[in-house]
């Protein structure tokens, strides 16, 4: 079942001469882990804003085509209705956090939905635990470091337990180990709870391994849409300058040099290392 579907979606921001996304037709299935990538300004963020109705309800502008999310037509639904199903984590956490304490920020969305107090407490605890922010509970969000703010922003969306979680470069301010922890958390939510994940990310080295669907955009259009191994393993992906993971690149180079490697394209260092171990064994 598709949880997100767009048909020939074209959108132009108010006062802008050219559309930011053009004729985008994509389908996202329930439980998928989707990676959206492309150069800055290619329309990734704009597309995500259509998923929870920020476009067109908040940003106005001109929207053509169709977008359906969890069976609801976005054009006909208010944002608060969509917000129950779609959680959006912004690129810049400062745009998302506003309460006086981390705890209040994470509870905010739930309070708005009129959920009983004890239930809110439980959900907040769960979200803080998952994102490793329990000890920040009483702190003021604006006093936190960029990385800490990003974790709190994710917690505040997680607490709502949405069906779909859309994350726009959610770890850009985090150190690599911190980023890996967050991606692992997101991956667990996807694999264990079945939450559909849409992740906007440039750093495919860190994230390609988790995805089972990749969408590459350029200049407002979708130029690749498919299975990550297939898309990232293709010559075209290299030609258009997508930052394919280094293990995948090494695989392609060695394959071209005639090394006898398996046909499954690797997306992580673990996969590439075990493949090389096999080959090296043959030579011993």
């Amino acid at each position, binding site marked *: 079942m598709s949880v997100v579907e767009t048909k020939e979606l074209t959108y132009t*921001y108010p*006062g*802008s001469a050219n559309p930011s996304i053009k004729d985008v037709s994509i389908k996202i299935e329930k439980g998928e882990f989707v990676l959206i*990538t*492309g*150069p*800055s*300004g*290619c329309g990734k*963020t704009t597309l995500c804003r259509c998923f929870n109705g920020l476009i067109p309800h908040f940003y106005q502008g001109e929207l053509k085509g169709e977008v359906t999310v969890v069976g609801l037509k976005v054009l006909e639904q208010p944002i608060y209705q969509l917000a129950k199903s779609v959680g959006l984590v912004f*690129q*810049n956490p*400062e745009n998302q956090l506003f309460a006086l304490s981390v705890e209040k920020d994470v509870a905010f969305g739930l309070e708005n939905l009129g959920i009983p107090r004890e239930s809110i407490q439980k959900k907040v605890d769960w979200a803080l635990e998952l994102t490793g922010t329990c000890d920040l509970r009483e702190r003021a969000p604006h*006093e936190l*470091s*960029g*990385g*800490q703010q990003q974790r709190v922003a994710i917690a505040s969306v997680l607490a709502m337990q949405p069906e779909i979680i859309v994350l726009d*470069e959610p770890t*850009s*301010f*985090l*150190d*690599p*180990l*911190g*980023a*890996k922890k967050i991606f692992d958390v997101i991956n667990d939510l996807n694999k264990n709870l079945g939450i559909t994940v849409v992740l906007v990310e*440039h*750093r495919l*080295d860190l994230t390609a391994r988790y995805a089972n669907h990749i969408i590459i955009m350029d200049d407002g259009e979708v130029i690749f849409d498919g299975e990550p191994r297939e898309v990232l393993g293709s010559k075209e992906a290299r030609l258009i*300058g*997508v*930052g394919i*993971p*280094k*293990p995948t*690149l*090494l695989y392609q*180079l*060695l394959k071209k*040099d005639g*090394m006898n490697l398996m046909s499954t394209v690797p997306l*992580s*260092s*673990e996969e*590439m*290392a*075990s493949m*090389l*171990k096999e*080959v*090296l064994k043959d*030579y*011993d």
Partner: protein
Amino acid sequence: MIEAKNVYFTYPNRVEALKGVSIRIGDGEFVALMGENGAGKTTLVKHFNGLLRPSKGTVFIDHVDTTKTSVAKLAKSVGFVFQNPDNQLFCETVEDEIAFALKNFGFEEKTVKKRVTWALNVLGLEHYRRNSPFMLSGGERKRVALASVLAWKPKILILDEPTIGQHHQQKEKLLQFILQMRTQGKTIIIVTHDVEFVAECNPRVLLMKQGKIIADGEARIVLTDPEILTQASIVPPQVTQIFLQLSNPDLPKEVIDVYQAREILLGLMERKKK
């Protein structure tokens, strides 16, 4: 030249962010400052343009003690591009944004125009000249912030997380740009978490942890030492991880580059065949 001598810094909320940092960065050096969130990286570089002054110890920029000069004076030779571009941008058009500092420094109108066009070109922003910076994407705003600092051609350039929001091709351009700046003798300091980017540039790497420098050396050496990296919450580059997992006595461990990895592996295969 930048010289920090036993620098300590404590924020008003009593957080001790620097605990005895001593380093020397020579003219024309390219340095990547890395380490976990809250390690003190941004605090340290803010000492280089006088935004912060040491609580103890001394920072010299070209032999001048930063406590004995003004931020305005230092700004001319030390350009600083913030992590979050929104803290830096405020003009109505991209063009005005880039011209702003130049006008403040009192450059002639003709020079301002030339410099603005040059900076727009270098960062691929020509099309956005008359757009509002706030209508641009996060990655583009980041480049506008960089262009606005570049334009006044500071001798030392500090870039806090320059690769955030930048796609592969833009990162390659950024690398080209850094190399170009180096040939002009500029000192470049980047604060970054982007291990893959650092692996591609192979600069001098300074690793920080809890207000101290815990490693200082060539990227190829520092980024292939898993123990020291873990201490700083850094994951080795993908290529290094492959070689660490292979843990093959016939293979070196100090590999960070994909093309170098390819040569080494092909070489090993050749030798094994014989």
